[in-house]
């Protein structure tokens, strides 16, 4: 009798396996975009607009052409002759590649130069003379809808104003009736500011068009290489089978590397024209002022409440600022993303949401920054509203949440906005968090400190969020259904290769996908190699964002492995000379039910697939799965923060941060905890210092890391993580839920609620993020709400 395999030892499900990708990264041997060097490669630089809104009167490139080493200078006019001055966006709008008629945001691409060396290309950009005629600038929805406002998108037919769309969801009448019966109506208005995902690596591409084969290869910083291939086929009118997109190692994405950017398109056209490889590497300012922003939404909400704390209804009116082009990366049916996932963890009978989206003279926004399509805004507003409502009722904020939670035995639960949540133990998570933070002790300390003039505060954020789009019935991007895929090849010696349609950017796919296969087939994880990011070899998939990799591509890995196991069972029956029905499976091994000592390993089955298959069986051991999830996954999280605010300066310090995440089955607990800590830090960053805004002229304030502050190891607080509560996803093959962005989504409200709690005696209802010391000081000193909406005040 053989000993059963120890799943943790072979690196299967639940093993905190050390990451295989680390082996190259710790040696400085990663292969990031800028590390790609091809023979004969040229370098491209982009000239950007210094103005936010201006008509282009003339562009003179003659001095740039004179500089030795310059091969090509491209302008919008030149792009237009090839029908490439404009490109479609992911939200059925158009976006300028290089400006022709006018520039519509500061940093917009106006021209580009291709030269022997990037220094020369930069010199040549500075030698391009552009004459602008400045136009009035719009930097918020209020200005956009004002009477007589200039029309930003005068390039579009039938666009008489700056309104992009209106959208609503929910039961307006039922909500109205519920409000009529309310004992208390609580109201909160706030601006969730623009935020930039700002991965440390900027965007870039190396386009390589080969005239001899007509094949276009593009190395590109993209989280979704297959979508890019489709987009390039459509934009450049090239045959899809002649396009190969390679996404090499990515130095962080966070949603910033989902869209198609003008730089990619320009490098492709330049390579086609010059028949040489062309590399474009964005600089940091270019990245911060021109690529995918997130958020920038004005939320005005009301909550109808019964005196005993029961929520009767919620009403949300919102306005969103999308910048100059509507290029949100989101499922096409949902114009303002999944903002209507707000309040999903609470049992609320009625809700209604309406939104109006506007063009402004700002870079196009609406990428899902560590977020599933506006879920961050939804959960932030939800938890800020919960705190405000609890205060209005005079109730304890933890208790108010508890009595409104969807109960454990109420699943599946239909939210008032139509989502179906399927699992969770919300109150149990809250209890773990309250216990860990020492909730009641802290409340006593807070009172005692107040007597001595010190301001302590505690903030809670509890939420369930929808992760892992689709299903394909409801979720598509440009009509392409949001499924994902995996392909597994088991070689004859029992080693295996996995490819998926996802593309990791630090999430550790090379480690965790192998663990799923190991769990399903009993092949040691070290015997499995994972490859992603090359459209010529990977199966079609929708890429990695919105925490969808494990829910969708990870599920596809499990399903493909199960198909392989089914074939291996037939091979085992053949080897064991019994019927398939008499064969049993244990990890890594099939055996005869009546004689458990007689068995064959998965490796022996693999060898048989190539050397000894039964008559009539197709040789080989390889399969694939295209997985269309039946629903989103619904992880739950409870984040609790304590702070101390310095009344003299408005500075606040985090004194404790407890995170309780129920994300279902954890494939690799070490990696899951890494994801949570990273998300918490981005939450802290948004709440505390990550400040990017615009002045009245549309100048981007926060266009470099000296102004756009990212937290360092010094400011970043420590975290206490909890995983005691685990509710498997009922529909995912291995019970996993998404987790990568929970902390970034649910975290900001915990920090802000803590500060607001600390200054609650002032009666101040809201300070917009980031809670900079001067804003907190202003609220404390003048006892008034502090808005962070642009244009930024001149004294800031």
């Amino acid at each position, binding site marked *: 009798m053989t000993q059963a395999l120890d799943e943790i030892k072979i690196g299967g499900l639940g093993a905190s396996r050390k990451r295989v990708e680390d082996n190259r990264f710790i040696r400085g041997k990663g292969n990031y975009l800028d590390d790609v060097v091809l023979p004969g490669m040229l370098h491209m630089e982009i000239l950007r607009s210094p103005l936010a809104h201006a008509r282009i009167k003339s562009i003179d490139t003659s001095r740039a052409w004179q500089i030795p080493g310059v091969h090509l200078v491209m302008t919008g006019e030149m792009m237009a002759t090839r029908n490439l001055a404009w490109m479609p966006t992911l939200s059925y709008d158009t976006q300028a590649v290089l400006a022709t008629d006018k520039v519509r945001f500061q940093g917009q691409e106006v021209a580009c130069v291709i030269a022997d060396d990037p220094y020369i290309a930069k010199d040549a950009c500075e030698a391009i003379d552009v004459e602008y005629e400045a136009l009035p600038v719009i930097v918020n929805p209020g200005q956009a809808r004002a009477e007589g406002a200039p029309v930003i998108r005068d390039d579009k037919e039938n666009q008489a104003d700056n309104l992009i769309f209106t959208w609503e969801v929910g039961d307006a009448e039922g909500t109205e009736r519920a409000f009529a019966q309310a004992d208390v109506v609580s109201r909160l208005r706030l601006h969730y500011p623009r935020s930039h995902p700002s991965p440390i690596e900027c965007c870039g591409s190396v386009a390589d068009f080969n005239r001899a084969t007509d094949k276009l290869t593009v190395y590109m910083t993209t989280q979704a290489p297959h979508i890019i291939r489709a987009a390039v086929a459509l934009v450049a009118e090239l045959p899809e089978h002649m396009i190969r997109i390679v996404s090499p190692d990515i*130095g962080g994405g966070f949603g910033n590397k989902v869209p198609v950017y003008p730089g990619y398109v320009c490098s492709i056209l330049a390579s086609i024209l010059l028949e040489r490889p062309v590399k474009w590497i964005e600089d940091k300012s270019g990245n911060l002022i021109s690529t995918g922003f997130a958020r920038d939404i004005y939320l005005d909400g009301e909550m109808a409440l019964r005196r005993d704390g029961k929520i009767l209804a919620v009403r949300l009116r919102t306005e969103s600022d999308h910048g100059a082009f509507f290029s949100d990366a989101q499922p096409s049916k949902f114009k303002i993303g999944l903002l209507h996932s707000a309040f999903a963890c609470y049992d609320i009978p009625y809700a209604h949401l309406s939104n109006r989206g506007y063009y402004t003279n700002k870079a196009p926004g609406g990428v899902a920054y560590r977020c599933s399509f506006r879920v961050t805004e939804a959960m932030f507003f939800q938890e800020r509203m919960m705190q405000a409502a609890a205060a209005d009722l005079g109730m304890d904020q933890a208790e108010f949440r508890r009595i409104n939670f969807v109960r454990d035995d109420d699943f599946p639960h239909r939210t008032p906005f139509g989502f179906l949540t399927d699992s969770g133990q919300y109150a149990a998570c809250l209890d773990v968090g309250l216990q860990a933070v020492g909730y009641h002790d802290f409340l006593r300390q807070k009172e005692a400190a107040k007597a001595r003039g010190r301001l302590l505060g505690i903030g809670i954020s509890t939420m369930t969020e929808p992760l892992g789009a689709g299903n394909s019935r409801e979720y598509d991007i440009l009509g392409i259904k949001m499924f994902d895929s995996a392909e597994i090849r088991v070689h004859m010696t029992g080693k295996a290769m996995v490819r998926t349609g996802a593309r990791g950017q630090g999430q550790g796919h090379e480690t965790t996908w192998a663990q799923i296969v190991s769990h399903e087939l009993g092949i040691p994880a070290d015997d499995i190699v994972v490859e992603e990011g090359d459209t010529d070899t990977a199966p079609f998939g929708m890429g990695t964002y919105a925490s969808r990799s494990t829910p969708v591509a990870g599920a596809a890995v499990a399903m493909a492995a199960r198909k392989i196991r089914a074939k291996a069972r037939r091979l085992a029956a053949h080897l064991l000379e019994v019927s398939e029905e008499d064969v049993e499976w244990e990890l890594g091994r099939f055996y005869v039910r009546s004689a458990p000592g007689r068995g064959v390993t998965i490796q022996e089955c693999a060898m048989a697939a190539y050397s000894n298959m039964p008559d009539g069986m197709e040789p080989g051991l390889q399969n694939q799965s295209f997985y269309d999830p039946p629903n989103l996954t619904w992880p739950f999280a409870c984040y609790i923060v304590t702070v101390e605010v310095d009344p003299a300066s408005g500075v606040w310090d985090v004194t404790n941060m407890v995170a309780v995440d129920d994300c279902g089955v954890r494939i690799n607990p070490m990696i899951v905890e890494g994801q949570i800590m990273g998300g918490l830090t981005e939450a802290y960053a948004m709440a505390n210092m990550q400040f990017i805004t615009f002045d009245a002229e549309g100048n981007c304030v926060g266009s470099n*890391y000296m102004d756009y502050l990212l937290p360092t190891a010094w400011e970043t607080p420590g975290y206490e993580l909890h995983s005691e509560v685990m509710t498997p996803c009922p529909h995912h093959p291995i019970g996993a839920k998404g987790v990568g962005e929970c902390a970034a989504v649910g975290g900001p409200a915990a920090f802000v609620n803590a500060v607001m709690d600390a200054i609650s005696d002032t009666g101040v209802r809201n300070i917009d993020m980031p809670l900079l010391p001067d804003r907190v000081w202003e609220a404390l000193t003048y006892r008034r709400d502090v808005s962070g909406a642009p244009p930024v005040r001149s004294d800031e």
Partner: protein
Amino acid sequence: MTTLHDDISDAGPGVGPGDVPLRRITFSVNGARTVAEVEPRLLLAHLLRRGLGLTGTHMGCDTTNCGACTVLVDGATVKSCTMLAVQADGHEITTVEGLATASELHPLQEGFKEAHGLQCGFCTPGMMLAAKALLDRNPDPTEEDVRWALSGNLCRCTGYQNIVKSVLWAAEKLGASSAGKTPDGGASSAGKTPDGGASSAGQTPDGGASSAGQTPDGGASSAGQTPDGGASSAGQTPDGGGEA
């Protein structure tokens, strides 16, 4: 060994674009003596990456903030995007490629893998070199020492807690750490910014002086806030040139 920077190789020997004379410099990279002819304006980071093919030194921000391009110059940390290649003349450069020997990883490299101190890996080389400079001068650092020493290096993925653990793991492996200094990974943020001075400096969004709080090696404002004295911040800008 003579290395001609490949970007100017078409321009003929001795002269760069615009007829700018090239400068010949001699320096050592990871222990190997290196001669290069470079344009005077060439950044050290670009010489390392393009001229010498040492692509482990990453370019993140071009403005001395992110620290992805951190290398050691004569043992002290320098952001190589803000040092001209000609300034390396006569100095010893260490890059991430110089950390491991042929047969053995540096304990910092092991530590980053063991403690999950990296995710996308882009900031990792700079982090490890900043940490090496710390451990070279302080083999027995506290968590606070580590956090301060790494505060010129940005990471967007990890939240730093595991990076700190990685460095402390390496310190222990190097035999320098006494018992009880093992990183516990707990919620030890309380008291980390003892008087809130450093963090508040970093939180003012657009004041000119505020940026110094984010790059402690960058300016006078950080002096005195260094837990282990001003020596470390001074030590991070060996030639004093080019720091923002």
